[in-house]
């Protein structure tokens, strides 16, 4: 059996809390641009300090965008009109997935995640030696944690898609947006169903993911919502789904992800089309630079801060420190690959919409992300193309 976290004594509790506060201060303190701090700061306090996502009650997040009506119904964006047509034809029914598949989350034959996903050596150096079965249990919990975060992200995407549909200035974009609202509802449905009926567990939302969703929902500017949801969250999610699709052996999960990836490819494509025009033609240089800096901070927040603390809280609190756990997560090959795939999707899109200027490139390079500057952006990639690419890389990932 996996260890169960012990109820900590007072001094361990205090230490854990200090570590958490230190991290929150680190996240907010490293933001250099004051405008970015003004946008992310309040959400940061609500998520990291007040832990609004974990209070066990529904969270009201006030919105302040305005709905953009147009009584002349312009045909203003043929590329979006085309996406709308494709989206209508691409609808699918979550009930049609092979739900009759039996899923054993700890099966050693049909693995949800590959065996070498975690840094077992770092864990055992920290004094936690797990046998084969316990490792499979921890990987099952980790899969469940990842899918739970996907689900929470989908809820954010559902509401953001609805807001963006109201706020966007292109009329063709509004019609398209309605299909995305439907898509996101279906994503919520299938991830929830998988978690509830196959894995039997739902993890709480990670604090950092909460911060991003809160910041987007509360921001009044439609293009910030777009940037945050369509490019950052969706772009990173697309990378994460793709990664899981590649490494997982579970057939139901794979067919679920395959369908979701095809929808998401459209969503990111839409974000690129909408923002490219707006950012390169309509924004002033200082407005553009603010968005560029914002995207960089959010990218770092997503990369550095998904420390899977919920799993630490469940199994390892009292057995090791949070700092040791961070080492485990950082050195885990699977999670490392997650980060890599996420950025290889994200940065080309930022480049395409004009948020990867020479000014910000050194900052990305310093963060070790320079190798992702090239690569295809979402408007040149179809969902099918993406699946093919993932299939081609699959053998390599499983071996390597």
């Amino acid at each position: 059996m996996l260890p169960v976290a012990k109820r900590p004594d007072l001094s361990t509790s205090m230490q854990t809390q200090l570590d958490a506060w230190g991290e929150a201060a680190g996240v907010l303190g490293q933001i250099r641009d004051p405008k970015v701090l003004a946008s992310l700061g309040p959400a940061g306090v609500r998520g990291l300090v007040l832990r609004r996502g974990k209070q066990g009650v529904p969270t009201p997040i006030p919105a302040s965008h305005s709905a953009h009506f147009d009584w002349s119904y312009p045909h203003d964006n043929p590329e979006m009109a085309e996406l709308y047509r494709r989206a209508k034809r691409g609808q699918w029914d979550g009930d049609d997935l092979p739900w009759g598949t039996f899923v054993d989350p700890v099966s050693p034959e049909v693995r949800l995640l590959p065996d070498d996903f975690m840094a077992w050596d770092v864990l055992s150096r920290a004094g936690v030696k797990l046998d084969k079965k316990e490792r499979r249990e921890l990987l099952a919990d980790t899969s469940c944690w990842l899918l739970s975060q996907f689900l929470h992200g989908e809820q954010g995407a559902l509401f953001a898609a609805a807001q963006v549909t109201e706020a966007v200035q292109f009329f063709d974009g509004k019609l398209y947006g309605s299909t995305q609202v439907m898509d996101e509802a279906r994503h919520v449905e299938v991830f929830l169903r998988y978690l509830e009926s196959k894995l039997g567990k739902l993890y709480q939302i990670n604090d950092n993911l909460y911060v991003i969703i809160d910041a987007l929902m509360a921001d009044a500017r439609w293009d910030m919502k777009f940037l945050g949801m369509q490019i950052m969250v969706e772009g990173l999610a697309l990378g994460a789904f793709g990664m899981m699709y590649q490494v997982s052996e579970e057939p139901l999960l794979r067919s679920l992800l395959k369908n979701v990836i095809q929808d998401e490819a459209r969503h990111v494509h839409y974000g690129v089309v909408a923002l490219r025009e707006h950012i390169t033609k309509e924004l002033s240089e200082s407005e553009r630079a603010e968005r560029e800096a914002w995207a960089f901070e959010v990218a770092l927040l997503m990369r550095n801060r998904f420390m899977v603390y919920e799993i630490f809280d469940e199994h390892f609190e009292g057995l090791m420190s949070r700092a040791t756990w961070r080492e485990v997560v950082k050195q885990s090959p699977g999670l490392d690959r997650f980060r890599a795939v996420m950025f290889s999707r994200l940065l080309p899109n930022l480049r395409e919409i004009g948020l990867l200027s020479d000014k910000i490139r050194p900052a990305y390079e310093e963060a070790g992300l320079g190798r992702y500057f090239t690569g295809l952006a979402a408007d040149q990639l179809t969902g099918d193309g993406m699946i093919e690419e993932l299939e081609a890389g699959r053998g390599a990932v499983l071996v390597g």
Partner: protein
Amino acid sequence: MTPPPRSALVRSLITAAEGVRRDLRAAFGPAFGHRVPVFSARDGHAWPAAPPSLTPRTLVVKALTRPTPDAVVITLADPSGAPLRAFPGQFFTLHVPVGGERLRRAYSVCSEAWGEVADVSLCVKRVQGGRVSGQLVDQLAEGARLDVHGPSGDYGLRPEAPAPSQLLLLSGGSGITPHLAMIRAALRHLPQTTLTLVYGSRRPSHALFIEELRALAAAHPDRLHLRLFVDDDAGEPWAGERGQLTEDRLVEVLGGHGALGDAAAWIGVCGPEGLTAGALQALARLDVSAARVHVERFTAGARPVTSDAPGLRLPQPVTLRRGAATWTFTAQPGKTLLESAVAAGVSLPWSCGMGGCGACKVRRVSGDVVLQEPSCLSGDERAAGDTLTCVGYAAGALTLELRP
């Protein structure tokens, strides 16, 4: 007297104050050891498993083992490989052809089931003179197909219910079966729960799963505590305790047990009628209110109706009500209310189809229903007018109320 409704201002102030309290607790609570659960358990009940149909589903016998000469453990799976969804404490209804008749019997799951599983194991113990159990124990073979309904019943543990602090399980004879499933599930899925099993058998060779139980207790010495009894060792080797689990004996065995006064404990009884009655009396003497005790009664197969009420031989109009909505159908002679409803396209809740689970319970507003007995209805339920559609026949025009 109800207090006057609060003004909108007062309400919004209260909401704001509650929000601030939650924020402070979330921000500073962890420093003082307050922890929120990082996940919630889900059992998938919102998503359809196989849609219930009056036609039983066919499962295939994947494996057979014989824990004692008089018992068989049948492992059943869906031939298509589709999962089964069951929870510890539930039972399946088997339809067994015996000499040209199809008899229905309920058998509890003894394997660990915590939602979707690839297969389930049921334990069947030979009943003196029992036609169904005899045939299953003696003649069933691997690869055979069995028609089943279920799983049914709400006895036992569920993932989404709050985890009990401890389990106190009292079993007699084959009443060990649902408890074994619960023990297996709790040891694995409820890491904070401690367990005590009190199990009485007539003699050592009748006791089921003793080796499994001892192995589980050895693997979890600080969580699972066993008290194993036989009425009489009949000269066979026996490492447990001796003496029949009568009311007095149970008072002695259970006295002082931590679960008795612990509202978060789960106390369950499953066994033959004599043991159940004695256990309920003993628990009452130990000041455990009857409402806290979960009881699983075996229902032997319901016997055909013997009543000669003339109304049974005629079609009868039935009105069903749920809140303001009503439906009507005709109950056909010789068919149960459930069968008639389904034939008329009216869907009613049900599960075991043999009077054992209560899923098909409805309230009789007017008219007479004749039930096949025995059934799982308690005296209180009968007095309140409850009846079961799966073993009930209309003896006159009926009006029935469905649960909301």
